[in-house]
């Protein structure tokens, strides 16, 4: 599975990439990711990549990504070139366009309203991603693994996953 995770510096893009990659790795997959640090951290557009399954690099070519996960709907378009036509978009806020399956989540609002701050939006998006790809992430197993992460807002994660767990 090839993922592009994007957003703006400071929104937790690198953290989200780490959480998803670390989870895949803990589930036993060979996993590799690429982050961008430095200048980009200061509020600029930022994207990271993640490959779950055997790969030597996290580099993703045009039209190759299965998932575009965005912490900011305004950043989706900038990374659309990576997405395969069968790809899925999961984004905070609202995006429409293209032949893609789109899952819009008001994660920032929900995080601020229900879980104590926008910084927990990432946990909601993580939950949504796990729920959308159950054959890869095995939700019950993922929840058990992620429960060990004390910094992760577990309620926000479960909210993202949906109520059936």
């Amino acid at each position, binding site marked *: 599975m090839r993922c592009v995770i994007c957003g703006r510096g400071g929104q937790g893009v690198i953290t989200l990439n*780490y959480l998803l990659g670390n989870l895949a790795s*803990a589930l036993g997959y060979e*996993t590799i*990711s690429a982050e961008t640090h*430095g*200048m*980009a951290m200061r509020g600029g557009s930022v994207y990271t990549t993640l490959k779950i399954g055997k790969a*030597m*690099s996290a580099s993703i070519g045009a039209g190759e990504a299965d998932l575009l996960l965005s912490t900011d709907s305004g950043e989706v378009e900038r990374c659309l*070139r990576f997405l395969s036509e069968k790809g899925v978009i999961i984004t905070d806020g609202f995006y429409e366009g293209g032949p893609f399956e789109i899952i819009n989540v008001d994660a920032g609002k929900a995080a601020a309203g229900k879980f104590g701050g926008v910084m927990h939006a990432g946990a909601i998006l993580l939950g949504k991603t796990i729920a959308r790809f159950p054959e890869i992430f095995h939700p019950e197993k993922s929840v058990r693994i992620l429960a060990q992460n004390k910094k992760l807002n577990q309620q926000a994660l479960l909210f993202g996953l949906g109520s059936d767990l």
Partner: protein
Amino acid sequence: MGRGFFLGNELMAYAAKAAGASSFYAYPGTPSSEILSSFQKYAPERYAQWALNEKLALELAAAAAISGSVSACAMKQVGLNVAADPLFSVAYTGVSGALAIISADDPGPHSSQTEQDSRMYAYAAKIPVTDPANPADAFRLTKKAFEISKKYGVPVMVRPVMRVCHSRQSFDLPEETEAPRHGRFVKDPSRWAATPKHRAALHIKLTEKLKEIAEDFYSELEIKPKAPFAVVACGYPAAVCADMKDRFEGSADFIKLDMPYPIPEGLISKIENSYEKILVLEETFPLLERSFVTRNRVYGKDTGTVPSAGEFTADSCENALNLFMEKKPENKKIYAPAETAPGPKPRLCAGCGHRSAFFAIKRAAPSGIYPGDIGCYTLGTNLKAVDTCICMGASITFAESLKRENPEKPVICTIGDSTFFHTGIPALLNAKINGSPIAVAILDNATTAMTGFQPVPHAEGHITIEQTLKGLGINSVTVIDPYDIKASVAAVKAAIAAAKEENCPAVVIFRRECVTKTKMKAGKPPKVNPGCTDCGMCYEVFECPAITFNGETVEIDGASCNGCLCCVEVCPRGVIAEDK
């Protein structure tokens, strides 16, 4: 330690521990910064130091290795420029323990002033260099670098690129690590204090060693041609290409070379003689490509098959393979708009003291020339308060010379606290002894912010900036809180006058801790009164990220605003006001 999802920088640090490194020295710089902090995390009982600059880091590690210890240093590629002097010399003397020099490159560049290739330094200085493709490879090739260094007594470079440093990979950390190796200094003036006469002999020895190292390293690599063509790759491009093997399987063999220098002559001619044509993939200089002699059958950067600048990507790899194999590009359906608006620019954080310092400098001397330096505050370009940015410490030297060339203009340079200690001190002393009437603004946020908040000497309590300035003979020194814009403007004006009066640099220290490091909230966000005319002063010119214009008036985002209240001073109409 077990399985984890590790950063390339973490795995290089762990490899140093596993190889028995007893000390590690570094100066922070993206993308190398996490290497030393990871060594501290994995080997807290061993010695780790943030040196004041890369030259010092390399010398400190080299001296430890000359004393028989296993040591390492890490820096970014432009840091290696600063460390080049000891690098070339230590290549000749060699070491008696082991020395690995990790120099992280930044093709793109993403967070650097150049995309230079550190491997060219290894080539020029005549030391071996390994070129890892991904984090797991970085672990293996860092360990290998220590092994070569121990066995042959030469310093060895490890050259990861940003995509190796800042990639994470699932990896099983080996349980076994070597105990830290400490040595004792054994006098040998013909090596450690070699005069030119001895240097020639050392050079001959080094050249011989390089041949042995090349043969030794590649002794197990067999070239068994199965296809008519070959793709020869090293470093990150090898990883990208390996993931696309299906595109050329059967037509071309894939050969990954882990050490681009030195390469045995026999290996090069064997590859040349075994294949009709050869594509070479590497970053960023065609070092390996130019090792081939039969130029007309070798494709790469020199033939335009691979771009000569910019980062190597899956797309550039596919394009190069198509050109090389004379294949038509696949017709992929891409639904992205042909052009997207450029994304938001990186900018200084809300409440950053640098922003108001720049604002005050511009207000104090609107016609001034503003040489800048390397760090978060390079973003002062957005505020039009940085006119030059060359390399670490160059703000002060540029100020001295620009003032000489443009005597009628006030020249006010800005330099961060870490950069001041890095290379700013000799520059300021030079300006002092040459009677340069410049104003120097030291932006003191008590940390190395851009690279992840590494410590600075004065915040650790060893010395103060003021003590240093006194020692440099600077008499006009004002310390100011940049949140007080009125006082800041007055301080800059006074410094310009004092510099002129005394024919000597005058310094203003803008002191305000990094708000992102301290997560500091200075107070309540201000309120917005009626009367906003959308002049853009606060959100465009002052560029505060907490302020936006909603079509009618400005809005202040309470979550990101830190309550510095500088916008109250900046707003020309008094619309933004303190919320008492």
